[in-house]
């Protein structure tokens, strides 16, 4: 199993395509950092709106490394599924397209094992991608913008508000958030692999995965009450942004943030279970279909 995993990882990392994801992330993050370094104020003005009439806020302090990472993740975690799909949806179909799949499947390795190994390899790729994101979006941002308390701008139902988390209470939230993101992206990995099993070229499943994710994400964010109640809970994309839950700090009865707390841990927990459920479902479907599949490519 370990040898197989090594082989799969070797394949992923020998391929130029793999680095597109890293390059794309790096580019987006650097652009963000550059933009905020030079004109973060106007973004803050937009977010703070009329609060500035009543309060003096040091915007240069508000735009700090932690805040930057939040903003970057906010945007990036919508795009990263595409990058993950690029690798995951290619795992089977790409090999079918290249013609290497049939050769691989004449080797004394069971299809289930092969699929699991490929899944694991894609998962490791995803984790590497997240680690890279953590390095440049969090640690590099901290280096450029410094450590400071973080403001979380939040819309909850009809209300908008700002949460302040003290700087000594943030790092663990990022670790948790990246951990959560790993689970969320693994759903994309599993979905990509499932679609990949049915195709004989990689474009189809990649596009299909991306389309499903985009479509669901759009529906998830529509903010139409009927959809919110009846559709949203059933879309896995609604749970992709669950990492933010770690930044929704718990409040005491006086509405003061409680250090080290999370507002709604059960909701995050539930999301994690739902995501794990999706992974399990997609993966088992992929294994069942792959075992039955006649290799005609």
């Amino acid at each position, binding site marked *: 199993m370990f*040898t*197989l995993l090594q*082989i799969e990882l070797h394949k992923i990392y020998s391929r130029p395509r793999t680095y597109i994801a890293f390059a794309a992330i790096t580019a987006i993050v650097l652009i963000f950092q550059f933009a905020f370094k030079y004109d973060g104020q106007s973004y803050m003005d937009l977010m703070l709106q009329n609060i500035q009439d009543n309060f003096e806020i040091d915007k240069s302090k508000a735009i700090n490394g932690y805040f930057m990472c939040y903003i970057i993740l906010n945007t990036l975690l919508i795009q990263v599924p595409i990058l993950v799909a690029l690798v995951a949806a290619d795992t089977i179909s790409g090999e079918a397209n290249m*013609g290497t799949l*049939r*050769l691989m499947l004449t080797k004394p390795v*069971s299809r289930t094992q092969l699929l699991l190994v490929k899944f694991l390899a894609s998962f490791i790729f995803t984790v590497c991608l997240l680690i890279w994101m953590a390095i440049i979006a969090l640690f590099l941002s901290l280096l450029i913008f410094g450590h400071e308390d973080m403001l979380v701008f939040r819309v909850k139902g009809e209300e908008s508000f700002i949460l302040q988390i003290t700087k000594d209470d943030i790092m663990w939230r990022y670790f948790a958030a990246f951990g959560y993101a790993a689970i969320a992206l693994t759903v994309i990995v599993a979905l990509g692999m499932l679609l990949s099993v049915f195709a004989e070229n990689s474009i189809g499943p990649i596009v299909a995965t991306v389309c499903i994710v985009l479509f669901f994400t759009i529906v998830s964010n529509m903010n139409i009450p009927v959809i919110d109640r009846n559709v949203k809970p059933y879309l896995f994309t609604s749970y992709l942004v669950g990492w933010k839950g770690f930044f929704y700090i718990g409040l005491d009865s006086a509405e003061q943030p409680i250090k080290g707390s999370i507002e709604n841990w059960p909701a995050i927990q539930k999301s994690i279970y739902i995501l794990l459920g999706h992974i399990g479902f997609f993966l088992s479907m992929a294994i069942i279909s792959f075992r039955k599949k006649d290799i005609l490519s």
Partner: protein
Amino acid sequence: MNTILKTNQLSKSFKDFKAVDNLSFKVNQGDIFGFLGQNGAGKSTTIRMLLSLIQPDSGSIEIFGMNLQTKRNDILRNVGAVIEKPDLYKYLSAYDNLKLFAKMSGIKVSKSLLMDQLELVGLASRYNSKVGTFSQGMKQRLGIAVALVHNPELIVLDEPTNGLDPQGIADIRNLILTLSRDRNKTVLVSSHLLSEIELIANRMIIIHHGKKVVEGEVKELLDPSKTILKIETGDNSKAFELLSKSNWTKGLTITQNQIQLEITKSDIPDLVRFLTAHQTDIYLIQNLHSLEDYFLKLTNPKEDVHVVTN
């Protein structure tokens, strides 16, 4: 002689199309077994079933005395295959490709082993080049190295000479003969060219529309003295009955108004005497063609041959 591979009434359909129909054959140890048929006759489907790439609808496959369904991994550890054109990882070097598949076959990999294999197929000097830069022939040779690297007992080659130039074809042919002679491997090689099989195989099967036409020793099947005879008699069913009790049962079939059989030319007068001795009126007796002609026609896609299978 040990049977290495045996299929029993193998069938596979794709939607309405019956690709393989009740196919039974066997390959003996040390055979170079020719698998012959037109394109679309069901060769590839059969070979993919032998390699567990396609699940048969019915029938069974036994290799090394084990059932492929239940002992897949044990069997495949000892099988090497090149299926159509061997596609490899273009972005990896020849050496890395070989190493990767060797590892997948579950053997201990050493640099000397891999280089030996590359040497065998004449790619040692290009071991570090990316496969993307290889010609079709080089890829084919690397594919064979991949098939051989784990020293399998049975080697399955699906149309290994497709797309190769004459020199490439000759190289592959020599390689197959070497493997059989010097390394005592069993080779199953498919082709749509009788001429090719004739040169290397000791046994062969011909399939047409997914059905077996004939199976046996190449020498015997292609014996120039053998012919296919068409007979019309006053009472065909009586004649058929007589013949089926005689020595001339090979390829014996009866259709509405004729009987057909395989026979050595020198036996024809005896056959005529035998029938007339049994009060059978012979209206027509026709030497259709030699077996070789028949198979040639069978394997030539331009000819539509009416096939009578036994």
